């Protein structure tokens, strides 16, 4: 029932057919209950990730990109309520999955790495001890069928150690033997982030979610991690959801990009198209506002600021700041519609030109 409405509404992925997509998020709506009021954080988020592809989720603070990721893995705080929508991982609705199975999914199918490795690594355990936990049950791949089948067998301590060393080598950490014995505070930020990536990818998940993983790092270290991710893409056959506010990161690593604003996906396209011809006024504004090497003169700004999500604007949430807003824009929320092959926009202006 929900699938049908999804196909009619956000037809951006209808060309793909369901067997191609690993993850589909349909019309996801979520509220936070706070003392100040209901924060309508997600207002109908829709996108899909194909198998093996890297989707970038871009937006500024408060747009809901991290919240979306946390909803996928169901790690939301107590005051969050999903009010509508569906998240399908390989056809299975994650919102309706019971907690114990969700734990299994988090262990095997979806892995998430966050911005600050310091807070997400246990400071009193060595890297080895934490990495080992991931390998307590080792999956076996049945490569011949190009399908991932998990056969869980208990591994011995020696096997686990080998797997750990291999995992650290994969993320290009020098001297893995020594690092296994070290504690998180003894490593630098970049190294910690690599450990987190190693832990995430160790079980070869179907979906790897990276939430602003380079934002807290120095520029040169960020470059290292981006190179690493690019190299890992070759060997990693799962899909990636890369969350960031940095358009440069997206340009480097992603094949498709979803732009979010105030709880909605406003534009979805493959990366070349998005940079060459951004359709949504917000995307256009965002690109003009970023200082780029070689750009001169004043930066074009988007007037106003990000809206208060307790009392969000009616209709299209971007309309108060949009230079081309029509009357319709304050009344009716625009649907996510196809314009050209693979390029999807939620904007009344673009809707008129729909092919």
């Amino acid at each position, binding site marked *: 029932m929900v699938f049908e409405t999804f196909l009619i509404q956000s037809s951006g992925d209808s060309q793909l057919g369901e067997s191609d997509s690993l993850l589909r998020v349909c019309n996801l709506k979520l509220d936070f209950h706070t*003392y100040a009021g209901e924060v309508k954080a997600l207002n109908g988020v829709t996108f899909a990730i194909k198998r093996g592809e890297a989707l970038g989720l871009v937006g500024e603070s408060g747009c809901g990109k991290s919240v979306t990721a946390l909803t996928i893995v169901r790690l939301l705080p107590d005051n969050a309520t999903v009010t509508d929508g569906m998240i399908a991982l390989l056809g299975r609705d994650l919102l309706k999955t019971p907690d114990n199975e969700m734990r299994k999914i988090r262990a095997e199918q979806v892995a998430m790495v966050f911005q600050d490795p310091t807070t997400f690594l246990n400071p009193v355990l060595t890297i080895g001890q934490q990495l080992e936990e991931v390998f307590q049950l080792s999956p076996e791949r049945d490569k011949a069928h190009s399908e991932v089948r998990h056969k869980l067998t208990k591994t011995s301590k020696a096997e686990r150690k080998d797997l750990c060393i291999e995992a650290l080598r994969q993320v290009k950490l020098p001297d893995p033997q020594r690092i296994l014995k070290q504690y998180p505070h003894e490593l630098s930020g970049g190294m910690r982030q690599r450990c987190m990536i190693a832990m995430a990818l160790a079980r070869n998940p179907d979906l790897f979610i990276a939430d602003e993983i380079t934002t807290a790092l120095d520029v040169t270290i960020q470059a290292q991690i981006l190179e690493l991710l690019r190299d890992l893409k070759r060997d990693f056959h799962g899909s990636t959801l890369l969350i960031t506010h940095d358009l440069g990161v997206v340009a480097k690593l992603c094949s498709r990009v979803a732009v979010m604003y105030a709880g909605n996906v406003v534009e979805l396209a493959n990366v070349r198209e998005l940079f060459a011809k951004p359709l949504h006024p917000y995307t256009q504004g965002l690109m003009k506002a970023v200082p780029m090497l070689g750009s001169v003169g004043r930066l074009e700004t988007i007037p106003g600021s990000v809206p208060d999500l307790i*009392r969000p604007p009616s209709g299209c949430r971007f309309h108060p700041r949009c230079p081309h807003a029509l009357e319709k824009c304050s009344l009716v929320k625009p649907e996510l519609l196809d314009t050209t092959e693979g390029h999807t926009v939620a904007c009344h202006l673009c809707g008129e030109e729909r092919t």
Partner: protein
Amino acid sequence: MNLKRSSWSPILAELKFAGHLLVQNKIVLSGIVISVGVLITAILSPFVVSPTIATTIDLPDRLHPPSATHWFGTDDFGRDLLGMIILSTRLDVSAMLEIVGAGLLIGVPLGAFSGFLGGKLDEALMRITDVFFSIPSLILALAVAAALGRGLDNLILAMIVVQWPGYARILRGQVLVEKDRLYVDALRALGIGKVRIIMLHIIPNTIYPLLVQCTLDLGGVILTFAGLSFLGFGASALTPELGRLITAGQTYIFQAPWLTAFPGIAILIIALAFNLMGDGIRDVLDPKLRR
């Protein structure tokens, strides 16, 4: 995050939020109600009960048990016990507020300047307060009161002496954290002098936890004050004061138990009420319990 509401002082906003939480706990609420009741009694007492009954000796009426005319009975000098208790609240409550208030007036500036400026001043303050802490407060109060001699004012003074070091240390701790905050750097960068920064910025921003501690202290202080009065320090025999009333009633404890019971219960209720109120305030203002 542009709130359309008109400008709310952050203090008002916090108080409103705290208020909401406070009224939810029944026990705390009763503590607040009783405390407020005690304060009102203290303020209104000279109008409700004539102060002269303290000094009016009416011997035929002495040691009457509770009756219709004297709800709490009469004491050794024929004075209406209920009236005496009501009068006493004024003295006890005002002593309590004076002690805590003066403790704050002394402790806060000392703690703030010491914490902010550091160096020898800080060392000196730390050592002095260490001395005070090394002696149990009740005994110290006793010793100072004894040294100063009898009298109500001397007792209050003694207790102030015992009260301020704790406040100075608490505030100093807060100031040590606050002085590293970015807005303090901004003020220094603007060339604004240290004294001004401490008085107008640091103290208002750090005094909150101390005020909470003070509300907690109120109950204990009044208990100690009454206790020391009972022992003979402080007020003279005829002065309406709860501790004194118990002292006077001691002699007749078997013949006229109401003479010790009612003042004792009064002290208990007052101390408990302020304690509960202080507890509630502290719980509510604990940032971890918010939202």
